[in-house]
């Protein structure tokens, strides 16, 4: 089971509104691994995350992405989700009128239905949810509030983590989930990701900051700059970036 290739990205090019953002990304993620993708603003980190989740506004112009050996790019967003891909959004979306509990149950049941497992009723679901809530330190009042409506930035991020915990995906992509969070909230995110870590799943953390990596130890750290992965290394690379910034890599990339 260990060390199977879960995600294989090869020479991925993608555009949004005609602008090329990704210019040949290569990335291999194996089960049991945590990857961190770092890089300066505008380097394409969020685009990569959204392309993997299937955002309709992004067009893939070249390259391929294999997920469990299958072509991910021909799958619809819901097919990807049902196959175990989860993106924690950088800017979670508010849904009027729909409570968090209703939304979460609809998501869980969509995936259960796909797997041919019996769908959960409201009461069973609430029972299953109780422990997940404890993990992120929430009381059940958040469940009766409309999805992300009137939530603070931190609450929205926590809500993404709650969804992550409830849906328990094979491949979790966290798009700057740690941005804008206080230290305690970062620890909560890190603890949740750590608890969900298993030999048969993997996590890709897109982040600006070293601090979350002090709580979740990544196996591989990548630097994305100018739409390409320009450097990969162990966790020590993150510390190096923390100290030196990204400029030296840009120069290195230009020289190369």
């Amino acid at each position: 089971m260990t060390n199977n290739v879960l995600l294989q990205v090869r020479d991925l090019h993608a555009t949004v509104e005609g602008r090329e953002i990704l210019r040949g990304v290569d990335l291999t993620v194996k089960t049991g691994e945590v990857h961190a993708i770092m890089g300066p603003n505008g380097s394409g980190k969020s685009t990569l995350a959204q392309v993997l989740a299937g955002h309709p506004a992004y067009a893939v112009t070249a390259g391929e992405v294999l997920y469990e050996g299958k072509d991910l790019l021909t799958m619809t967003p819901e097919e990807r989700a049902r196959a175990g891909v989860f993106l924690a959004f950088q800017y979670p979306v508010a849904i009027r009128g729909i409570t968090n509990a209703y939304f979460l149950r609809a998501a869980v049941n969509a995936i259960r239905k796909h797997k041919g497992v019996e769908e959960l009723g409201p009461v069973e679901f609430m029972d299953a949810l109780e422990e997940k809530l404890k993990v992120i330190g929430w009381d059940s009042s958040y469940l009766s509030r409309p999805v992300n409506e009137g939530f603070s930035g931190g609450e929205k991020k926590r809500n993404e983590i709650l969804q992550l915990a409830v849906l328990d995906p094979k491949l979790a992509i966290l798009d700057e989930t740690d941005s804008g969070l206080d230290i305690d909230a970062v620890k909560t995110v890190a603890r949740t990701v750590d608890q969900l870590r298993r030999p048969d799943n993997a996590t890709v953390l897109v982040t600006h900051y070293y601090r979350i990596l002090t709580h979740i130890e990544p196996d591989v750290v990548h630097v994305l700059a100018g739409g390409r992965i320009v450097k990969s290394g162990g966790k020590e690379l993150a510390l190096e970036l923390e100290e030196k910034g990204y400029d030296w890599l840009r120069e290195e990339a230009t020289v190369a």
Partner: protein
Amino acid sequence: MTAIADRYLAEFKAFTGNGGGSAPAWLKEIRENAIARFVELGFPTTKQEEWRFTSVAPIAASPFALARGPRASLPTAADVERLSLGLGPRVVFVDGRYQAQLSTAASLPPGASAGSLAGVLGAGPGADVVREHLARHARWQESTFTALNTAFIADGAFVHVAAGVSLDRPIEIVYLSSGQAAATGPAVSQPRTLIVLDAGAHATIVECYGALSAGVYWANAVTEAVVGRDARLELFRVQREGTEGIQVATTHSRQERDSYLALHLVTLGAALARHDVSTVLDGAGAELILNGLYLLSGAQHVDHHTVIDHAQPNCASHEFFNGVLAERAHGVFNGRIIVRPGAQRTDSKQTNNNLLLSTEARADSQPQLEIYADDVKCTHGSTVGPLDETQLYYLRSRGLSPEAARSILTYGFGAEILGRMRHADVRAQLDRLVRERLGGREGGA
């Protein structure tokens, strides 16, 4: 206009010479004045600002005859069950006439009564309350439709809750149109409701409007609600008129000091409907929730005109209207908020969100704020548009099919309004109606 006026005048003469003649003198005087006012005003045209988006030509051009009550068969208990919520004691009217044998409001607790207005017009318990309030709040001098209804007051619903009395179960007022035409043309009925809560009273009341058969008819309804000091009223209105029915309605409320009124309007029916809601916050510290939902399809046209009058300081009003418009439906919302001089520390919020499920559906939304005090908080906002692509993608990224995502987002427009309803049993019943309405449309929309 003359021909139309003559027709209703003739109806009025026949009406007063008939059973209507038994009214007390004060009411006769109001009715005489009201018919005169109706003749003066005539039916509005789309040249008038208030009627810009809604043509009442189908009313003005048809020879409507005053409904004389159901002729042959009465509605069955099953009809009443289907068209009411079935949650509490009820008073039932067919074509505006009280139906004692279908009503079940005889056993209310002491201090509370619900029944026929006709029974208390002259004498008996409640006569003084009726005289004090009936036709005193609905401004028939300003509205041709209210004037017409007022001219023909003979019966209707009267609910009175005495000081300090609390009712847990909702009282239902059920207005059914038979759809039976008269010899001279389709029928018009004039449903009339008076609700009075004395100081400190608590009640939940549901008005249900429905049709017993398909066909053209017109219901011209007027409701007056008076909420006394410290009283709390949750008033629901469920409009399920027939597919060819026309409804014109006005709801007038007056609130005294520290009172609470929630008006929940769920509009599903009628080919053409116009509802004018006029609320007055007439005592300091009063709170109003005006919470409306319209779910329309086919060629339905529904127009809501609301006025919230902040006449006293320290009052709060929160107004929310959501519309879901499919096929060729047309929704109109006009929300006017008046903050009178001296109504300081007013807190007023208005939103109107319209979801267009087809390219042919249409919504017009107009806020109108008139603020004459300086220490106030007033906000308003409105949206008109199709389902949001980002929201759809977000739901799909969680495993939901595009159909399920659309259905959830659409239901959210209704659920947001339902979520503000406090009476759980009523809310659950309305939730069921909303789901039925939206579910039944999915294929066609």
